[in-house]
């Protein structure tokens, strides 16, 4: 008895959570980790909205999606969480960061929306949030606290379902020869889709000549043309051959 009270007393001193009077053994660490990842995901998602610098937006998005992967792990979907980390954080966001780096010239790093747009977006966003939260808490069976048990790993059932066979749930007991209720056809469609996307993205982003030259480049090339003509043609004192060249020469000599 005395030993237990000493342990709980030291726990109270050590951890701020225990200052509320919770014994250490009563804390559900699943809930604590959920609160940690949920607050990280939400705070960084709001940070993506509030940041004006596109590089910071990309960084906040990385943190938010990684925290979402933590939430997937906590929900028992460890394969989805791993895929979230590998595909989203490791692939999609690297792609986005490449896009940011390729287009982040000084005037475009932070394009600020107007104050009226901000106010309107805040109003619409908060009303949408209220509607979604009201819908989320309106069903009683969703409010029931869950169990805190570790479930079976899901990688094998997921792989078998993608191959067209179910080894989980009520569909597992289907007789052999019955219609497969797995996900073989969507799996094939997604694979073809990814191939088409690969070809399409390479076609869209191929290097090609600029359709309209940028004003700065056009001005720079005109200046170089004028300098070249004045340097070469004027000391030779030759009559210019074409009308545009004569205009350039006369403009440059003045």
């Amino acid at each position, binding site marked *: 008895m005395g030993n237990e009270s000493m342990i709980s007393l030291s726990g109270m001193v050590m951890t701020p959570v225990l200052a509320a009077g919770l014994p250490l053994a*009563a*804390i*559900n660490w699943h*809930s604590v980790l959920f*609160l940690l990842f*949920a607050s990280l*995901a*939400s705070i960084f*998602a*709001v940070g*993506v*909205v509030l940041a004006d610098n*596109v590089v910071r*937006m*990309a960084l906040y*998005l990385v943190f938010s*999606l990684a925290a979402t992967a933590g939430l997937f792990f906590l*929900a*028992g*979907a460890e394969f*989805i969480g791993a895929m979230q980390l590998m595909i*989203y954080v490791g692939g999609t966001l690297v*792609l*986005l960061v490449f*896009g*940011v780096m*390729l287009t982040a010239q000084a005037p*475009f790093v932070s394009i*600020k929306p107007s104050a009226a747009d*901000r106010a309107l*977006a805040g109003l619409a*966003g908060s009303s*949408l*949030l209220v509607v*979604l*939260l009201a819908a989320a*808490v309106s069903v009683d*069976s*969703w409010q*029931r*606290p*869950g*169990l805190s048990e570790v*479930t079976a790993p*899901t990688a094998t*059932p*997921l792989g078998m*379902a*993608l191959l067209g066979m*179910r080894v*989980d*749930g009520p569909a597992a007991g289907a007789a052999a020869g019955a219609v497969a209720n797995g996900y073989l056809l969507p799996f094939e469609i*997604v694979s073809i889709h*990814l191939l088409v996307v690969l070809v*399409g*993205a*390479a076609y*869209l*982003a191929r290097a090609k000549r600029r359709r309209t030259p*940028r004003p700065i480049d056009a001005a720079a090339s005109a200046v170089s043309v004028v300098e070249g003509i004045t340097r070469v043609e004027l000391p030779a004192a030759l009559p210019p051959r074409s009308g545009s060249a004569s205009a350039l020469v006369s403009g440059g000599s003045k």
Partner: protein
Amino acid sequence: MNIVSLSAGCCLFATGPLTEPVGVVHYLIVGAILFTAGVVCMALKRNALGVLMGIELVLNGANLNFVAFSSPYLRGAGSATLGLDGQVIALFVILLAAAEAAVALAITLNFYNNHSTVDIDRADDLKG
């Protein structure tokens, strides 16, 4: 109408008894926040890449709901879950989001090559 239950849910989420296991509603609240942030990001940002990031946030909010409803032990005892179907749908959403990001980024780079900007307010060539 649901102000009382809404505030109750928010209190459950915020102060949340650390001794009780989390349920589906907690995941739904996080998913709602991610979804709203994504929608506002899509509507507000003038940078085309910011709009893409908003799309990613929206897809993640939806994914979070799918995973929460598929999780057998967030629903409590005796409740029906989506089972593995929710996780498979979440996996497909992740894959299609990757494909969408690749194509949208290619379009953005093409737009940047043609217009020398990523400001989507300048994309008004098709205006009648």
